[in-house]
């Protein structure tokens, strides 16, 4: 017996095709934006990086210079490579401490205690405040500088030496000790840039089904075992999210050394071409770091279900 084909309606689209069409229609704003506001300028910037750009009355003209702009970035520019290395190293150390701190803070904020709401409200305050113009102004402000310096020097004079003596007793590698001390000195900065990360982890902790803990309690597991066998695996995808977010946030922050380098080049005497070349080198580094972290950490991540 032959199967009869079902009748088709609506311009004879199958259900599957209708689904695809609707999906693309809903996504249309982003498709347009991605193509014209993101991809097109990005390709143009790649083109610029091989050219010299001259502004004329009716627009701009390009003069092909080959790899000259890149050669300038690597060989001629006095500080770019050094700044790039410095930014990358700072990013790695700060990202590590932000992850540790946000994890710790999220676990504390997830516990039941009096004043929890106030503590949460205060810890998330930097999300509201520390962005845009405030960061820009604080970076160059005189009073903030003095007060922060006062605060840092308290830690530098009192906490740091005592701690370094204490830490040296454990015969840890010197590099690690330096890193820990640097982290303590930049603690205010780390705390203020962890708002979103804490929020994401807190949401994750609250989404862990109670039943898992109840079951483990029946089995007689300790809190320590619960942490390693339930909490950590269940939030591990969010730790990956946080790693990526932290890296991106640090690299795209406008107070970043390289970002100001690029801006100075593009709008200064060096020109758009060199500015574009710089931002491509920079993007290459970011992309590389993201790919490496993703490859390493996605193996460690546990997906429930």
């Amino acid at each position, binding site marked *: 017996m032959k199967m009869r084909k079902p009748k088709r309606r609506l311009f004879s689209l199958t259900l599957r095709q209708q*689904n695809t069409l*609707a999906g693309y229609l809903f*996504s249309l704003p982003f498709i347009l*934006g991605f193509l014209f506001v993101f991809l097109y*300028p990005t390709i143009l910037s790649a083109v610029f990086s091989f050219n010299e750009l001259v502004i004329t009355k009716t627009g701009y003209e390009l003069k092909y210079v080959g790899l000259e702009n890149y050669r300038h970035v690597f060989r001629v520019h006095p500080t770019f490579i050094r700044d790039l290395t410095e930014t990358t190293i700072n990013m790695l150390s700060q990202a590590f401490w932000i992850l540790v701190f946000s994890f710790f803070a999220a676990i504390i904020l997830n516990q039941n*205690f009096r004043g929890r709401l106030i503590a949460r409200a205060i810890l998330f305050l930097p999300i509201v405040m520390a962005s845009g*113009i405030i960061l820009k102004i604080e970076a160059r402000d*005189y009073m903030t500088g003095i007060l922060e310096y006062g605060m840092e020097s308290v830690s530098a004079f009192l906490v740091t030496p005592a701690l370094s003596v204490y830490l040296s007793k454990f015969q840890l590698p010197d590099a690690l000790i330096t890193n820990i001390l640097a982290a303590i000195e930049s603690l205010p900065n780390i705390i*203020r840039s962890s708002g979103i990360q804490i929020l994401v982890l807190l949401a994750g902790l609250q989404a862990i089904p109670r039943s898992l803990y109840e079951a483990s309690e029946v089995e007689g597991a300790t809190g320590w075992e619960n942490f390693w066998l339930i909490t950590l695996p269940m939030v591990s995808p969010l730790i990956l999210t946080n790693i990526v977010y932290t890296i991106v946030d640090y690299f795209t922050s406008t107070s970043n050394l390289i970002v100001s380098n690029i801006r100075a080049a593009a709008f200064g005497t060096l020109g758009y071409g060199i500015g574009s070349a710089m931002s*491509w080198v920079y993007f290459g580094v970011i992309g590389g770091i993201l790919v490496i972290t993703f490859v390493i950490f996605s193996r460690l991540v546990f997906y429930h279900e």
Partner: protein
Amino acid sequence: MGVMEHRLHWKRSLFRYGWSLARAVILIGVCYIVIFPVLSKLASSFMSRSDLWDTTVVWIPRHPTLRNYELAWNYMNYPTAFWNSVKLAVLVSALQLASSTLVGYGIARFHFKGAKVLFTLAIITLVVPPELFIIPLYLNFRYFDFLGLLPVQLNFINTVWPAVITAATCTGPRNGLFIYIMRQYFKGMPRDLEEAASVDGAGAFRTFSKIMLPAAVPAMVTVFLFAFVWQWNDYYMTQMFYSSATTLPMMLDKLPNSVLGMRWEASLPETSLLNNTGSLLLIAPLVILYVFLQRFFVESVQRTGITGQ
């Protein structure tokens, strides 16, 4: 036996109290660090010039004055700038909300080949530093002819159009995050909802507007609040495409210069007083908003399923 049990109990409650105490100390310390910049701004905003040179003044000014507020209020043109900021932030965040809700829904609930690709692309836009494309984008807005389709070149610089276009097409700063939040939220909604609607004969758009949208309000509030706050504080994009705008961040940036004229660079302490006062005036509306909405803000994020996947 009894003694053992008693000792164990005692040990446990000691541990619990010890932990509560440690937690309180840690939290107070951390909260202090977070609030510290606000407190220092608040303190210095009431200082007069002589307090700056007085070494005994750390927090409480000896000659408190409202002069800083007066100057900042007048030179920032506060009421006008405030209103302009409100208009721009509401416009931009409403557009960002609308576009990222549509896109998030599209890639979460329809099974088509491009959905995964589009989601990945949205994440990529989040990862790419804006410096990479901001200059060509500027040139595109400066000589806007829609890829050569328009007969004349329009100049969109110093108009609201760049902000509108980027917001409506999900390409504003951190817009990928909003798509991500909405997509995760819609992904977590039960399938039955749509099936019931389609059995009742509702089309894709009716299902979206009548059933899915009302259920997505918590995630939408989150997106709107994030978008609003970031636009309210935004300096980078505004200065790039709309430098003539008189929003609060733009006025704040110019404040020392407009009060002190050319000598602002020579009088750093005074600049600092003005900056601190101006910053407070900028964030005051946000903090008030936050105090009223913070519960909603925090809880809505928890319910949005940023957690999924």
